């Protein structure tokens, strides 16, 4: 045999064999992850002690919870010096925390609106539902408005007709340019809402009075208020943010400048100043005689504020797309809007999901700031409850309850965003296709 021969050829193919059984089990995992060296062991022991200390501090307080008490002093009497949570305040005042001073007999209306909210969201958030269900999603805002504020059904109907007018004008004028058509649509809808709506509502209500007992904005409060502002802000700030992000990247200098100015101005100002502007200053700028509902003003301001952040988040997603995607879309003959809608935005929004949901969660929690302009959000109501002699001196229980409710909503949004990211992943879907 030649010792210096470097030529070698495999004669038989190695057949695939099963992977050797996993080393270890529980004990091995514990050794590897918890007691891997003395630093790791020390940290494990310290963490366990910290957790134990925390549980021992809170457990008796929670364990001694008092649910049946009409006042804090009654609670203290029952507890007799032992530490314990006085949840009696939540039992006593939970309707107020949820609805504010909404008339008790009409609680069913916001509740129904809340339940229907999920029916309206389902076809948007999840796939596999019939496209026709989206009609309900479109109708829902008007319906919810009518249920919560009451009054004549014809007001929301007439507002929807304004959108129909805008769509009609747009489709007529679109032949002479998108910009002109958009202007015509906006002006047409504004005129409709300003002049046609009041007359139409009056006539329609006289002929077919479909009325609910009206409830004023002052009576709205608690989580009802937070959810109304939060959901409207979220629903409106996303499309506005998309437009602003596209505007900021637009090739048209005027559009770009307007978008940049808007975004930088709104982002450079604290939300609370915008809210004060909404509550105090806006009346000076509006035509005299128009009374603009405070909640509507707050929704507008919160939307504008959130949309500036949204625009920057989405701009990040747009910037992350390779230029080849724009070029490929253009080379196929897609015009700007089609390319954006079909190719660019689906990808850019997918990249931006964590940032978008982050903004949504921030917006929802920022709704508590409205207490500074005199609206009764849950925090303001907590202060009001504590001002009552029965519950003076209580605060942990109220804030824990409010925090827990906010947590449920925000955690839900966070989980949904993770689900959505998973669903939209198209890079490694071997399993699904195999």
């Amino acid at each position: 045999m030649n010792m210096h021969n470097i030529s070698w050829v495999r004669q038989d193919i190695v057949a695939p064999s099963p992977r050797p059984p996993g080393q270890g089990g529980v004990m091995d995992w514990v050794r590897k992850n918890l007691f891997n060296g003395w630093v790791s062991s020390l940290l494990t022991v310290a963490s366990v002690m910290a957790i134990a200390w925390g549980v021992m501090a809170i457990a008796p307080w929670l364990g001694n919870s008092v649910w049946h008490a009409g006042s804090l002093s009654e609670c203290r009497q029952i507890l007799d010096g032992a530490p314990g949570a006085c949840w009696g305040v939540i039992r006593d005042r939970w309707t107020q925390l949820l609805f504010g001073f909404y008339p008790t007999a009409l609680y069913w209306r916001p509740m129904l609106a809340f339940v229907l909210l999920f029916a309206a969201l389902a076809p948007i958030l999840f796939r596999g539902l019939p496209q026709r269900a989206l009609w309900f999603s479109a109708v829902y805002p008007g319906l919810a408005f009518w249920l919560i504020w009451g009054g004549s059904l014809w007001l929301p109907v007439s507002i929807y007709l304004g959108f129909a007018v805008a769509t009609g004008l747009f489709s007529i004028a679109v032949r002479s340019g998108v910009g002109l058509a958009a202007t015509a649509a906006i002006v047409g809808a504004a005129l409709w809402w300003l002049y046609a709506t009041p007359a139409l509502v009056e006539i329609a209500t006289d002929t077919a009075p479909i009325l609910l007992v009206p409830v004023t904005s002052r009576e709205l409060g608690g989580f009802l208020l937070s959810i109304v502002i939060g959901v409207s802000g979220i629903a409106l700030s996303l499309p506005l943010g998309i437009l602003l992000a596209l505007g900021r990247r637009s090739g048209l200098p005027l559009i770009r400048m307007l978008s940049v100015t808007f975004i930088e101005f709104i982002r450079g100002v604290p939300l609370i100043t915008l809210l004060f502007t909404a509550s105090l200053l806006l009346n000076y700028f509006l035509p005299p005689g128009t009374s603009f509902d405070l909640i509507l003003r707050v929704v507008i301001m919160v939307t504008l504020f959130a949309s500036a952040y949204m625009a920057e988040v989405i701009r990040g997603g747009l910037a992350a797309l390779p230029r080849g995607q724009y070029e490929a879309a253009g080379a196929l003959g897609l015009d700007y809007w089609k390319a954006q809608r079909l190719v660019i935005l689906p990808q850019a929004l997918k990249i931006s999901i964590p940032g978008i949901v982050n903004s949504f969660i921030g917006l929802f929690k920022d709704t508590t700031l409205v207490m500074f302009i005199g609206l009764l959000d849950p925090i303001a109501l907590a202060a009001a409850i504590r001002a009552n002699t029965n519950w003076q001196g209580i605060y942990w229980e109220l804030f824990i309850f409010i925090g827990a409710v906010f947590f449920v909503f925000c955690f839900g949004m966070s989980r949904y965003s993770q689900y959505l990211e998973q669903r939209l992943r198209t890079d490694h879907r071997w399993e699904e296709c195999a």
Partner: protein
Amino acid sequence: MNNTMTQRVSAHKDRLAVAGFAVEIAGMNKWYGDFHVLRDINLTVRLGERIVICGPSGSGKSTMIRCINRLEEHQSGTIVVDGIELTSDLKKIEEVRREVGMVFQHFNLFPHLTILQNCMLAPVWVRKVPEKQARDLAMHFLEKVRIPDQAHKYPGQLSGGQQQRVAIARALCMKPRVMLFDEPTSALDPEMIKEVLDTMIALAEEGMTMLCVTHEMGFAQAVADRVIFMDQGQIVEENGPKAFFSAPQSERTRAFLGQILGH
């Protein structure tokens, strides 16, 4: 065998002689800032003609074919594609882009859509072809590039060669009159280059008007009617493939061919 080949070639030449112009570029110049990237480009391409453009990197060959569907703007001279002059008129640009298909170096498939959806997108939204018809059209061209079985996968699950063939099918679904190829095989592993070139050769044999920026000289010899050599933003030499490779006229062409064919 040889006889039929010559017959086919001469039949092709006869067709070219009567066909109109697909692309006419006259006195075209382009600058990036102060940098003069394309200088006095004159090029006419007949319908059915196959042109291979080669040259060292940075010579402006990609920029030139990207001017043909206005992915790049030219500053002087004229470009007429399929009878339509390219100006800043968006309508005209979209009209040209409908008739001109493009295949990119990095495929540029839409990763959020399946292969089938990639192919159906433009016919449905630009040509307004009904969905079912667009699906049949897409499947037809996917069969042509020999990957109909991958239609429901996403681009990220395909190999580079497969992705590039999908990109060709996607462009063909618009039934373009002219196809532009911008270094279609430069981003591919050597094993996959052949499958893409075979697809392109098949397309050429069907009479598609093609402009290819490529360094695949074997491809140029097999299908090109004309080979164009560019250097420093100018067309330096233009000739039939036989003469181009056997007797290059310019010193720079000789140096370039020596570089790429030398080893």
